[in-house]
């Protein structure tokens, strides 16, 4: 048996799906988290498959989500549609319900968030509503998990007894007669079950449905005539007629079945007046993000990380491991592999996991309470100035956890050039794996005063998105107006502890798994390469294969201030996974300092960098080509080798230029070194960037105009 979960965006479908199947799919408190449908088996009823469809407002063909959902319903024909209706805005939700009922598939309504309605003192006459709609209604609360067994029972019963959904709701007589005429033409052509659905879609002139039928010219004319007649009667286009009829029907239902208290400003509205205030919105956003990164990287994070790094790994684990290995008489190289290679490398990452987890908790809190959706609205004003819509900010929010889902989230952006630009710039926002780099530099270079560095890294990313946006929008492939911004904002709510912890764990888990697999393998390879020469003799690290490779690459990074071979190698290994940057540092610096009492990574790193070159190193690693997993995601979403290369090429070039400017000018102004050729080039580069941002740029409308002028002359 197959159940499909359908409903408006952010009405609790995925929460319901997780409750029903025991899965832990990503749930966010903003619309559009589920882009593609997901399948799972019902808990305790393994023979029932549940499909979670993306959230939709209607079954029209305007957005990707709507097309995915309706194709599934019509082609796969599930046995029951569980329509999740958010009782707190029942009127808008029922708009979709009326369309689901028309598909002919039996519908069961899960009236969700009933607890909120009761608390508000509103009343819904469920029995009457069920009669008027012609389908069973079950009260549920997805958040609390109540009403689920009743829902499953009702849905199973409907699937067994009702083969066909009776369509109770009717439109105005004129519209009905037009629909009956179209049904007459269609009868025999389509399945009796979905006759009304197809009649309505043809009446609405739905192009995707029209294309399915290969009507003869005279049949098409006949249908057109029916629609035209009705359109003239109502002086409106057919699709709007249907929209209005649906709302009229729902209005009637509301009058009869729903009793609401007089509307007043809700708490959500009051919060919105403050946080989306014209003047205060952006300072509030900056303040919030500043706090998030300050708490997770500098304040609370450092306390936990210092302990794991210095005490847990520094003293206990590596102490035990070397003593233990010595006691069983392991060879020197084996001891070195375990202590310097694996514990030094993987440990360096594990040490930063607490910081990541704190970051994830804070981000999850912001998402869950509903603030992040407002940020998209706030940023729309800024993004629009350089031709991206606020919708592009959603992928960037997701990317602050991990770039791969961030890049995938760009799929909801309809406009192709907007989408490409979003994909190219999304990974500038530092992801969780880049956090250790920031934390390492913060801890090593600014041990006393690092509070500003992590927020600064975040806003460096956002700043680069904005600068790139302005520059790219002036080039030919990206020119054009951004699509208008429309987005539903969820209600503010107190985040649930369970949801936040699940979020944190889901995101944190993948890093721990990565540490055990990719990072582990990488550190072993790095250890091998850094201890042996090309003829596989164990040598001093400076004569190893890795030193050779590093020294060959190092000159490339010399103008950026980190031309030593260790940093070069760390940057390259960062392509495998960004955590590797720190892991490699852990292996290489661990070995170099092995003779000293303290093998602390921080002290050793502090020795290799100046304040300026450390900042440049961090900037380059944050902005340059992302890890292989993210590059793979870029390739899938761009669906073109040319665009993929363009994206990584642009990212790396920008990273190089930014790091160059930071190092060259930083050396002069911060370290007080003489003003040289490098600084001159850096200033020239800044001038170039300013020019690229300020120039007039390509204007598609102008080009057309000048072409026609030429034609006119000839």
């Amino acid at each position, binding site marked *: 048996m197959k159940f499909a979960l359908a409903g408006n965006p952010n009405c609790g479908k995925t929460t319901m799906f997780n409750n029903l199947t025991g899965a832990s799919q990503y749930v966010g408190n903003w619309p559009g988290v589920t882009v593609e449908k997901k399948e799972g088996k019902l808990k305790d009823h393994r023979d029932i498959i549940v499909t979670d469809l993306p959230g939709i407002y209607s079954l*029209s063909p*305007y957005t990707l989500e709507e097309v995915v959902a309706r194709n599934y319903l019509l082609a796969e024909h599930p046995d029951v549609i569980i329509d999740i209706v958010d009782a707190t805005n029942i*009127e*808008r939700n029922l708009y979709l319900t009326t369309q689901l009922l028309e598909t002919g598939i039996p519908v069961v309504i899960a009236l969700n968030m009933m607890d909120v309605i009761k608390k508000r003192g509103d009343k819904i006459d469920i029995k009457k509503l069920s009669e008027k709609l012609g389908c069973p209604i079950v009260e549920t609360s997805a958040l609390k998990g109540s009403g689920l067994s009743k829902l499953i029972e009702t849905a199973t019963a409907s699937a067994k007894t009702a083969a066909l959904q009776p369509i109770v709701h009717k439109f105005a007589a004129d519209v009905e007669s037009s629909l009956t005429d179209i049904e007459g033409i269609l009868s025999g052509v389509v399945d009796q079950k979905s006759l009304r659905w197809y009649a309505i879609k043809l009446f609405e002139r739905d192009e995707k449905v029209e294309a399915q039928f290969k009507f003869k010219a005279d049949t098409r004319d006949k249908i057109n005539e029916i629609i035209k007649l009705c359109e003239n009667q109502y002086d409106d286009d057919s699709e709007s007629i249907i929209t*209005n009829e649906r709302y009229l029907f729902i209005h009637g239902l509301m009058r009869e079945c729903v009793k609401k208290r007089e509307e007043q400003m809700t708490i959500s509205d009051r919060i919105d007046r403050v946080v989306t205030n*014209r003047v205060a*919105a952006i300072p509030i956003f900056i303040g919030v993000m500043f706090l998030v990164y300050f708490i997770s990287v500098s304040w609370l994070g450092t306390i936990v990380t210092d302990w794991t790094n210095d005490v847990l790994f520094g003293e206990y684990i590596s102490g035990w491991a070397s003593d233990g290995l010595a006691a069983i008489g392991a060879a020197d190289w084996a001891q070195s592999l375990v202590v310097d290679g694996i514990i030094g490398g993987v440990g360096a990452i594990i040490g930063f996991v607490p910081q990541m987890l704190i970051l994830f908790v804070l981000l999850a809190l912001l998402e869950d309470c509903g603030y992040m959706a407002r940020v998209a609205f706030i940023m729309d004003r800024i993004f629009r100035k350089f031709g991206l819509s606020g919708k592009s900010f959603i992928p960037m929010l997701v990317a602050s956890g991990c770039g791969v889902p961030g890049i995938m989230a760009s799929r909801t952006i309809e406009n192709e050039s907007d989408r490409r630009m979003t994909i190219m710039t999304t990974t500038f926002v530092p992801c969780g794996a880049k956090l250790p780099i920031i934390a390492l530099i913060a801890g090593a270079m600014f041990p006393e005063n690092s509070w500003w560095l992590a927020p600064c890294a975040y806003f460096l990313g956002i700043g680069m998105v904005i600068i790139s946006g302005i520059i790219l929008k002036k080039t030919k492939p990206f020119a054009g107006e951004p699509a208008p911004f429309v987005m539903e904002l969820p*209600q503010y709510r107190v985040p649930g502890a369970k949801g936040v912890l699940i979020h944190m764990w889901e995101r944190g888990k993948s890093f721990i798994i990565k540490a055990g697999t990719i990072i582990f393998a990488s550190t072993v390879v790095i250890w091998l390469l850094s201890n042996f020469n090309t003829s596989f003799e164990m040598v001093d690290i400076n004569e190893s294969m890795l030193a050779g490779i590093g020294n060959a690459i190092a000159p490339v990074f010399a103008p950026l201030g980190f031309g030593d071979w260790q940093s070069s190698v760390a940057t390259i290994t960062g392509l495998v996974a960004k955590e590797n940057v720190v892991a490699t540092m852990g292996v290489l610096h661990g070995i170099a300092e092995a003779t000293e009492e303290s093998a602390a990574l921080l002290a050793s790193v502090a020795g290799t960098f100046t304040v300026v070159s450390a900042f440049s190193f961090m900037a380059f690693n944050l902005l340059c080509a992302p890890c292989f997993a993210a590059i793979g995601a870029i390739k899938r979403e761009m669906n073109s080798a040319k665009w993929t290369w363009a994206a990584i090429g642009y990212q790396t070039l920008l990273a190089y230029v930014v790091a160059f400017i930071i190092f060259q000018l930083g050396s002069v102004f911060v370290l007080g070194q003489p003003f040289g050729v490098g600084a001159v080039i850096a200033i020239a580069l800044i001038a170039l960037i300013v020019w690229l941002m300020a120039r007039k740029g390509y204007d598609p409308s102008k080009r057309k105009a000048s072409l026609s002028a030429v034609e006119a002359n000839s």
Partner: protein
Amino acid sequence: MPLTFATAGKKAFICKIKGKDDVRHFLGSLGFVEGEHVTVVSEMGGNMIVNVKDTRIAISKTMANRIMVADA
């Protein structure tokens, strides 16, 4: 008057939505239909958050300009 001129916090009703394209139909499925009551929650450089049918919708200036309202 276009929605962009409406005062925040005051109820208004939609008298007309201009245009006959996809955007208009999408607005329709979100609850923006003629005769419906709307309240502007907040406004930011022409972009606005609007309360319609018990939900808050954020829309950009170009869209808001196409929705004509009158004081209720």
